[in-house]
């Protein structure tokens, strides 16, 4: 059978742009650029025997409580969210030789040298009725206190903001020199 050579007609490419536009619009609509952000914390491991309480000296603890009306109690006195950051910052600053301030421990670091680190722990307690918004506000203020301290230290030693540091060793050492010590107690009722 003698077949005639058929010419394959050229495919019209002018609709290519339309097709790709369609795809483009699809991806434009489904895309979500927002990256997730939040306050990172580490939960403590479960307590094995609840009777054995770890004794911490009173001067090493800053008590922050939030009741179900979202009111604050800081070290037994009514507190305010506006001043909480400064209180936490003062507490977390190492103050060698001061009587009521938390104890100070000297540690040696490779880049920082001998640095006084604070042994204080911020104890955060909340009621079951506390609103999440308030809880996050308090966590945020406490985080801000530590971030400011770290920033000051980074400025003092490396003349850079803490957030601008890129060297992992520097970040690690400052994080160890100013550890975020926030302890969350076992849940209990707060009046």
């Amino acid at each position, binding site marked *: 059978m003698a077949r005639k050579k058929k010419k394959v007609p050229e495919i019209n*490419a002018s609709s*290519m*742009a339309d097709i*790709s*536009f369609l*795809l*483009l619009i699809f*991806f*434009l609509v*489904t*895309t*979500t*650029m927002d*990256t*997730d*952000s*939040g*306050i*990172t*914390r*580490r*939960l*403590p*491991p*479960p307590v094995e025997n609840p009777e054995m309480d770890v004794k911490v000296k009173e001067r090493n603890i800053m008590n922050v409580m939030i009741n179900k009306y*979202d009111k604050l109690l800081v070290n037994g006195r009514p507190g305010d*969210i*506006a001043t909480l950051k400064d209180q936490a910052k003062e507490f977390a600053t190492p103050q060698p030789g001061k009587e009521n301030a938390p104890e100070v421990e000297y540690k040696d670091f490779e880049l920082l040298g001998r640095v006084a680190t604070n042994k204080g722990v911020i104890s955060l307690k*909340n*009621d*079951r*009725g*506390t*609103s*999440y*918004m*308030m*809880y*996050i*506000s308090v*966590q*945020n*203020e406490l*985080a*801000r206190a530590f*971030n400011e301290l770290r920033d000051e230290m980074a400025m003092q030693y490396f003349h850079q903001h803490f957030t601008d540091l890129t060297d992992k060793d520097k970040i690690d050492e400052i994080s160890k020199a100013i550890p975020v010590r926030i302890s*969350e107690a076992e*849940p209990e009722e707060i009046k």
Partner: protein
Amino acid sequence: MAKFKPDGKKEVPAISTGSMPDIIFMLIFFFMVTTSMREVTLRVKMILPQATEVQKLEKKSLVSFIYIGPPTQAKYGTESRLQLDDQYAEVSDVIQFIEKERQARNEADRPLLTTSLKVHEEVRMGLVTDVKQELRKCGAFRITYSARKGETAGK
């Protein structure tokens, strides 16, 4: 010297649209790469609280989400509920959920698994505390409280 001759009608040459598909394709690839499709349909209302000290979550593939908030549909009441994956769940289901999330990752990544708590700002802490206790029990210690960047409430 060239003269500026006022030659009446000079036709503007047609702009070639031949490269249009290429340009669009380039844009497509950009969006294809950056896109991340929504994995779950939210069944709880979600207004995240605001905070100033937020950090970006680094590895999205290593994050599992727990949603807590009042149901979106009125027929489920107004009491805050827990959502895991696509459905409502009880606090006791959290351990199983974390175990499942762990199984889905390869072994090297498992210790790095972070749990992101996405909680509506009006939820009471009781439910959140219960979830946190469950997370402690199953050893998922790395958590983040999801928040938007902005001034905190209560100021």
